[in-house]
């Protein structure tokens, strides 16, 4: 459970983890054969909203979410930009 004031935001670590929750293999069946593919690299660049909170001791908490709304409004939220590279690792 997040202890952020703004519940719309998730912890930055959660934001990163969401990207890697993908199925290991993509499978396609063709006649008697199964073709499997795996993603080796994910390079993502997305605008995101940040919620930076500071407590009295100066400790910073970072909350983030991808853009929530796609409707243009008179006051648009501020979009920051995040690029992340994920790579597949084999666990021995």
């Amino acid at each position, binding site marked *: 459970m997040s202890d*952020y004031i703004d519940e719309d935001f998730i912890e930055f*670590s959660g934001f990163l983890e969401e990207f890697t929750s993908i199925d290991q293999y993509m499978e396609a069946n063709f006649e008697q054969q199964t073709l499997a593919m795996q993603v080796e690299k994910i390079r993502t660049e997305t605008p995101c909203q940040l919620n930076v909170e500071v407590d009295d001791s100066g400790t*910073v908490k970072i909350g983030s979410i991808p853009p929530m709304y796609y409707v243009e409004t008179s006051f648009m939220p501020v979009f*920051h930009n995040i690029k992340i*590279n994920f790579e597949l690792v084999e666990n021995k």
Partner: protein
Amino acid sequence: MATANRSWNLESFLDSLIVELDKARETLAIKAINKPLTYAVKDVNLEMQLFPSFDGDNVSFITAQPGQEGASKIAIQLGSITDQQIRKTTKEPTTTQDVSIDLIDEIDTDTKNTLRKIGVTSVNDLDKIQKKNVDLLKASNKKVDYGKLANLLNKARRTENPPRVGRVNFNISRSASTIDVEGDNLIFDKKYKPVAVFNGEMVDFTSATKSNLKIQIDSDKVKDKDNELIVISDPFTLFKMKLDN
């Protein structure tokens, strides 16, 4: 309580960002236990819209809010780094024998900031600088005087490592009588010559180490009860013992 839209400094922000990255890595490592293949975060590049401000000493940032224009852009790139690289490029952490200058109340914040700017964060750092004959007064733009500071720091270091007396023995013989004191941190800085007073008279040391003191005494001066031994091991430490023979 944490509050949004307050200014923060870059160090706290990066600390938090790195903690979040570590958390993500830990989760992925747990996932790796059951899955032969997982994804690792190779690098992260975060580009933010911010307003920086400078109060004369520190730069702080505030995240741009909806409707605000003209924000500066700052990009933080975090790449993966190996433990070897970390060891090569960072200072060793402060050891138990050392004292971080942050913990010394007698040093004012201005002096602490000046020292940090020239890379001094602990008492050992300051010793290294002195050994290389660096003129601290010049290096810090006449803000920090070594002599004054060294005393404060040595005192703090001694307070962190107080003397501990374990066992005291009288060795009385006709030729030479001694008192043996065993313990820890009895002598802390070899720069200073220790002084001992036994029953009101100055006495000499046969040997003085961190864990053991051998003090020469006159056997005639030893009383059955309430012998007083005072040891001054450095300008900041005096310990007094009441001893029964």
